C-alpha cells in the first residue's frame, strides 16, 4: 500500500457530481442500513410466518370447535365479527415483531455507535430521523398490507364452512387495509419510543408493556364513563378500532377517529424524539 494511493483523492468528475445530497440520498442510505442487518430480516420473517400461521391455526381450531359443538363463547366471537376475528388472531401476536423491529431500528444506532457516523454525515440530525421514519414506514406498510390481505384470505377460506365473508361487504375492505395501516403506525410508535429511550431492552419492554399489558388492562375501566374515554384514547386501543367491523355500543371513537388519535400520539412521540435528538449529545 503506497501513501500516494492512500490519500484516495476523488477523481475530478466525482467531486463535481451531485455536490448537494438531497433527502432522496438520505432515504437510500437508510434503506442500505435497514436491509444490511439481520435483525430486520428475522423480525420480518417472524412477523410474516407468525401472523399467517397463527391466523390459519386459530381460525381452524375455532371452526373445528364450532363444528364439534365446543367453545360456545369463541364461536360467538367468530360469528359476531368474523373479519375482526381473522385479523386479530394472527396480527395480535405478529404485531410484537413489528414493535421489536421499530424499537431496534432506532436503538441499535445508539448501542452500536452508528449514530455517531450517521450524525457526522448529517449534522442537522433531524433529516436522519425523518429519512429513517419514511423508509421504515414504507417497508412496514408494504409488508403489513400484504400480510393482512393474505391473512384475510387464509382466514376466509378456513372459516368458510361456518360463516361467509367477502371484501365487498360493508367495512371489510376498510378493516383489512386498516390492519396494515395500524401495523405501520405501530412500527413508527415503537421507533419513536426507541428514539426517546435509546436502549434496546428498555424500549422493547416499554412498547410491549404498553401494547400487551397497559392497553388491555384499561378495558377493566369500562364500567365507568371516564374509564371508557381513557381506554378509547389510549394509543394502541384507539388505533385498533380500524380493524373492527362492528363498533361496541359504548365505544367513544369511530374507527377513523381512533386511527387519527393513534397517529396523533405517534406524531407527538416522534416530535419529542426529534427534539431530544437535537438537544442531546450523541
Amino acid at each position, binding site marked *: *500500500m503506497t*501513501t500516494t494511493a492512500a490519500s484516495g483523492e*476523488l477523481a475530478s468528475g466525482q467531486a463535481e457530481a451531485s455536490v*448537494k445530497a*438531497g433527502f432522496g440520498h438520505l432515504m437510500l442510505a437508510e434503506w*442500505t442500513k435497514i436491509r444490511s442487518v439481520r435483525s430486520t430480516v428475522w423480525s420480518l420473517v417472524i412477523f410474516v410466518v407468525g401472523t399467517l400461521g397463527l391466523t390459519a391455526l386459530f381460525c381452524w381450531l375455532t371452526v373445528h370447535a364450532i363444528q364439534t359443538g365446543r367453545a360456545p363463547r369463541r364461536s360467538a366471537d367468530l360469528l359476531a365479527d368474523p373479519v375482526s376475528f381473522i385479523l386479530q388472531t394472527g396480527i395480535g401476536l405478529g404485531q410484537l415483531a413489528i414493535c421489536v423491529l421499530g424499537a431496534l431500528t432506532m436503538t441499535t444506532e445508539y448501542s452500536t455507535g452508528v449514530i455517531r*457516523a*450517521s450524525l457526522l*454525515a448529517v*449534522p442537522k440530525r433531524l433529516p436522519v430521523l425523518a429519512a429513517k421514519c419514511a423508509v421504515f414506514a414504507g417497508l412496514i406498510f408494504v409488508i403489513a398490507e400484504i400480510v393482512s390481505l393474505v391473512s384475510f384470505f387464509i382466514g376466509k377460506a378456513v372459516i368458510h364452512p361456518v360463516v361467509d365473508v367477502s371484501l365487498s361487504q360493508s367495512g371489510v375492505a376498510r378493516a383489512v387495509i386498516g390492519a396494515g395501516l395500524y401495523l405501520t403506525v405501530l412500527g413508527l410508535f415503537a421507533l419513536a419510543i426507541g428514539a426517546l429511550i435509546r436502549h434496546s431492552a428498555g424500549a422493547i419492554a416499554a412498547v410491549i408493556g404498553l401494547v400487551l399489558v397497559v392497553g388491555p388492562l384499561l378495558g377493566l375501566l369500562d364500567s365507568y364513563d371516564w374509564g371508557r374515554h381513557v381506554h378509547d384514547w389510549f394509543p394502541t386501543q384507539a388505533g385498533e378500532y380500524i380493524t373492527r367491523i362492528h363498533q361496541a355500543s359504548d365505544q367513544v371513537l369511530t374507527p377513523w377517529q381512533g386511527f387519527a388519535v393513534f397517529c396523533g400520539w405517534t406524531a407527538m412521540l416522534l416530535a419529542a424524539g426529534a427534539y431530544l435528538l437535537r438537544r442531546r449529545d450523541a
Partner: protein
Amino acid sequence: MIEARDLSKKFRTTLAVDHLSFTVQPGRVTGFLGPNGAGKSTTMRIILGLDHPTSGSATINGKPYAELSTPLRTVGALLEAKSVHNGRSARNHLLFLAQTQGLPSSRVDAMLDVVGLRPVANKRAGGFSLGMSQRLGVAAALLGDPQVLLLDEPVNGLDPEGVLWIRNLMKHLASQGKTVLVSSHLMNEMAVTADHLIVIGRGRLLADAPTEEVVARGSGQSVRVRTPDPVRLTELIAAEGGQVAPATATENGNGDDQAPALTVTGIPAARVGELAASASVVLHELTPQLASLEDAFLELTSDSLEFGHLDAEPVTMRPEPGRRQPEPAQSADGSVR
C-alpha cells in the same frame, strides 16, 4: 483550518473543557496531546458537532460543522469510540455513508482498496480485528476526500506496521495541504509525527507551539557534569549565572565513578567546559541532556495537576488579610492558628 474559540464543556459537575482556544493550520500535522481525561475527545466531539459546548464555538474552514451541507466531503473523522454495527459488512457501512453524501458506490470500493479491506468487504464488521476496524474507520474518514481530518487516537492498539501506515498517511495528507489534527497520549509517537503541538491538561490549554519548541521549553536544556571538585565548579557556574543541583539518583548514571554528578542549568555545555578549563577544574563527564517530548509533556501536565491541587485546598484554612473571615460559628478550627 479548524478554529476553537473559548470552548467550554461541563458535564454535570466536572468541567471537561475549560475555555479552550486554538487554531489548527493546514499543511502540517498538528498533535493534540494530553493525559487521559484531559478533554481531547470531548473537544474533538464538539468540533464535529456531536457534543454541544456549554459556551464558545468551533468552526471548520470558517463554518460550524452543522452548517456543512455534505460534511464528509469537507471533514473526515476517526473517533476513538466504535461507530460500526457489528452485524453490517464493511462495504455496507461505507456504502450508506457514501449515499448520505451523494457519492458513487465506486468510491466505496476505491476506499476499501486504499485501506486493504477489499478481501473482507462483505464480512460482518463484528469479526474484525482491532487493526481492521481501525482501517475501516480510516476508510470512512477518507471517503469524501476531505480537506480537514480529525483522528482521535488513531494508532491505539495497532501493530508497528499499522502505526507506520497511519503515520505516513497523516504526513502525506498534510503535505497535500490538508488540515490534520491527531490526538494522542503517546508522546514519542507525536514527536515523530506532529509538526505542531497543542497540549491540554484538565481541559485547559498548556502549550500551542511547534513540536521542537515544546520540547525545548520543557525541562530546559541541562548539562550533567561529574567532577572531583564540585565546590569550585559550583562557584564558577554561579558566577556566570547558572544553577547547579546534585544530580538525582536516576540521572547519576555511572556508578563506578566516585566523583559526584551535578546537573547544571542556565548555561550551555560548551560554556561549562570552558569555565572548567579556565580554572583547571578536572571534569570526568560533560553531557548535554536533551529533554524528550515526554519530559516536556510530563512537566506541562504536572503543572496543571498541581494547579488543580491548590484549587482543591479549602480557602478557609488559610485566611488572607482583606478576605472575609469565616463565620464565628465555623472558626473553631481556624482559630487554632
